């Protein structure tokens, strides 16, 4: 609450402003800046993976000579496995979840519902400060035993993760901390949204962003305990010699030979996916909410079908708890179980489809303002259509037999995670940047960034579908070693060139983001003429030049009343009678 203290107080407090603030806006920005840093880390890991796939065993530029001096700059197959394990872990647990729930969640929830802060500001601070020890543990896991970092993928299937990855324990520790951080955030968001709404802000007047974050928080609160328990059991298997997931090794019927064990590796898969499938929605629902808000605002038109949008979001979350088995169609679990998971998986396409149709209908008949934020939102929708439809293809267990663990899956979840979630994040940053920093990002650079990202994203991930249909497996350090996949090598090179371009295109974003912090055009209080409460502050804070807290004392209407007949302006803020 910096802006409420006098000028002298502001100076005194600003020294520790960034470190130990309990202000939700500061914590939101801390999450944002950290997640952007981790995004760069995760992106570089992806490029290293792509380099190896296109030009196997050649020296990786710059890093290769430094990291693998003894090896002629060539990476080892062990390190390749570390690379994709780390890429997934960083992108999922340190980029997408923190930037959506941590950054946008923290920043927007209180402002959008008219609360002065979160219900538990100190828990909120703790949730951010657990992220750095978590990242520290993740780094430790890679360097603690050179060449033997966690290398069993982000899915960490035992017995591989228990018996052959000495550093896996640190990885587990890191995820446990991230889990606690998410849990603290989740209970905070749920409490805040249920208890601290300004009078008149009924549940069905909440902006979709808040709905997305609320449903996400509920998903986290229900699913995370399962992951936490499973991780602790995995850790116990590795460090204490228990046998939750480590099986007894039987050579043949005549000579049973045992190691400590007796556990069931399939149990881990069930527990892991019981969390990790809802986690897929944790990584997309807030993005869906943000995009709904931006599409409505820049179409100058009410969101089409607000209630179906809310209910379909809840339906996605509910069904999301009964579809985890589609990750295990070929695991060897009972085939009838797969048959039922196939139906629930197919059905989850229904609420997702309804959302898509509602977005299309929101844009239809609108008077579109093609800002960078709008372009990213439209990009989200178009990428989500492709990624969602390939999800229907793989919902069939029989089809999954041919595409399971191939690049088809890699293509699918990158369309959804990068193509959709990250595009929404870029859009959200463009959209709320004026609210966060009192300046606007450069529109031209934003559009350039969008165009390059959109084209190269498709160049990178579209061909992966075909490689997957051909059967090229994921997690292969060198697919070209298999005779049957050798003719695909030109495609692997093409994908890598696109990925390098995609990485380079992000420099435009970073330049725009950091440049705009300093040189961005000063924005007014409500530059997009939006309805939601976060834009309705009366005057900018004199110390930070950022708009102060919301002054709304009452909410009179829903968040999407754009272009209503009989009004002079085409928007109608929620707090205006």
């Amino acid at each position, binding site marked *: 609450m910096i802006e409420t203290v006098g000028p002298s107080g502001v100076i005194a407090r600003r020294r520790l402003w960034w470190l130990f603030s309990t202000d939700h806006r500061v914590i939101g920005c801390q999450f944002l800046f950290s997640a952007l840093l981790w995004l760069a880390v995760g992106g570089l890991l992806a490029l290293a993976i792509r380099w190896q796939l296109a030009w196997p065993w050649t020296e990786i530029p710059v890093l290769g000579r430094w990291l693998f001096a003894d090896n002629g700059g060539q990476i080892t197959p*062990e390190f390749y496995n570390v690379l994709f394990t780390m890429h997934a872990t960083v992108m999922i647990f340190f980029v997408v979840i923190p930037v959506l729930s941590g950054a946008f969640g923290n920043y927007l929830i209180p402002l959008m519902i008219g609360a002065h802060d979160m219900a538990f500001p100190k828990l909120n601070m703790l949730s951010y400060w657990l992220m750095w020890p978590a990242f520290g543990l993740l780094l430790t896991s890679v360097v603690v035993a050179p060449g033997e970092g966690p290398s069993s993928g982000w899915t960490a299937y035992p017995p591989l993760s228990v018996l052959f990855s000495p550093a896996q324990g640190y990885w587990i520790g890191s995820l446990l901390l991230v889990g606690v951080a998410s849990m603290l955030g989740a209970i905070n968001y749920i409490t805040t949204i249920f208890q601290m709404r300004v009078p008149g802000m009924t549940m069905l007047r909440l902006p979709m962003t808040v709905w997305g974050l609320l449903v996400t928080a509920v998903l986290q609160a229900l699913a995370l305990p399962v992951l936490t328990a499973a991780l602790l059991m995995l850790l116990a298997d590795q460090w204490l010699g228990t046998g939750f997931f480590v099986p007894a090794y039987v050579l043949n019927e005549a000579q049973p030979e045992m190691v400590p064990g007796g556990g069931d590796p399939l149990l881990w898969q069930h527990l892991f996916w019981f969390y990790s499938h809802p986690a897929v929605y944790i990584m997309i629902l807030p993005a869906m909410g943000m995009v709904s808000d931006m599409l409505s605002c820049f179409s100058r*038109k009410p969101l089409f079908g607000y209630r179906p949008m809310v209910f379909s979001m809840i339906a996605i979350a509910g069904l999301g708890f009964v579809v985890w088995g589609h990750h295990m169609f070929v695991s060897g679990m009972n085939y009838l179980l797969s048959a039922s998971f196939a139906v629930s998986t197919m059905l989850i396409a229904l609420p997702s*489809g309804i959302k898509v149709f509602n977005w299309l209908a929101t844009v239809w008949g609108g008077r579109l303002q093609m800002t960078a934020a709008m372009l990213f939102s439209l990009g989200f929708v178009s990428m989500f259509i492709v990624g969602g439809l390939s999800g229907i293809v793989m919902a069939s267990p029989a089809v999954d037999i041919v595409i399971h663990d191939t690049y088809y899956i890699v293509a699918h979840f990158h369309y959804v995670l990068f193509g959709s979630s990250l595009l929404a994040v870029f859009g959200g940053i463009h959209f709320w940047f004026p609210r966060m920093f009192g300046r606007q990002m450069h529109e031209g650079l934003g559009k350039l960034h969008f165009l390059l990202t959109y084209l190269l994203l498709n160049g990178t991930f579209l061909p992966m579908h075909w490689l997957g249909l051909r059967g090229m497996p994921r997690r292969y350090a060198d697919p070209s070693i298999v005779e049957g996949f050798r003719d695909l090598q030109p495609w692997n090179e093409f994908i890598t060139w696109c990925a390098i371009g995609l990485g380079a295109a992000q420099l435009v974003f970073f330049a725009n983001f950091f440049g705009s912090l300093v040189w961005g055009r000063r924005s007014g209080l409500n530059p997009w003429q939006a309805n939601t409460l976060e834009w309705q502050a009366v005057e900018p804070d004199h110390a930070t030049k950022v708009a102060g807290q919301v002054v709304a004392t009452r909410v009179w209407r829903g968040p999407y009343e754009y272009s209503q007949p009989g009004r002079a302006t085409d928007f109608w803020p929620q707090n205006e009678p």
Partner: protein
Amino acid sequence: MNRGWSLLFLALPVVVIGSFAMAAMGLSPFGRLWLPVNANQSEPGIDRLVNLLHIVVGVVLALTGLFFAAAIWRGTRGGSQPAAGWSHNTWLEVLWTLIPAAILVWLSLSQYSAWNASRRDQPLAGDGSGLPRRPLIRVVAQRFHWEFHHAGVDGVTGTADDVVRLNELVVPGDTDVVLELITRDVVHSFGVPALRLKQDIVPGLTPLVWFRMKNGDQVELVCTELCGWGHYLMQARIRAVSAETYAAGFGDGNGQGAISSTLSTSLTALTSLTALTSLTALRSSWSLRLSPEVSGD
């Protein structure tokens, strides 16, 4: 300029549908880009299902993509006309809930037959008993190679007369072959793209797979579940030979094989030894992990 963006958003479905159609028809600058040529004579209907699902989602993509681009084209035409103020249309919403729901239910039901054929309808033994056919070969996966234990003269896997081969699986052609899969260490996966087969091998489970190959055909087997640093090296060849050739080398599974029992016993002993060695290595790695002080030596 603003109207140009609608063309960009139109380009995506056009490129996606166009390129998938080209891939399905075998038109590609390099490499086949669809399912590999099928080599499984009893293919359970997966190819048909892959095509069907892609056609259905392709149509949906075409319709939504076209509508999306049109909406953007209309919305960016400029002029002073205000945006529409409406926010729902019950009829439309009921329609676009019920139609996709019907399509999804139809898809869920229509894909069962292929799944049942792949996982339930095990080939029957040829003796008229109506019982499922006995596995002819036991596939033993181990970091990072494949062992194939042929049933041998007695026709039963896991017995002393098993004939063991490494990284090359020979099967009798033009007949249904049932394999049982086990692993010695971590989770592996038996993936044969050309036979439309993929089955994880989780320690403790013994899943079965079945197929029928044309005499003389040859396909590749790859591991499709991450099993460690050498995951990408874990491959083998599957070769179908005539029943006579098979019987001469591996026993025909009906007690009529001609393999010398001493040879097969020694081979079995050899495999057990290999297995035992790997197990000892596993156990020592286990004890090393439990007692860090030993790790110095």
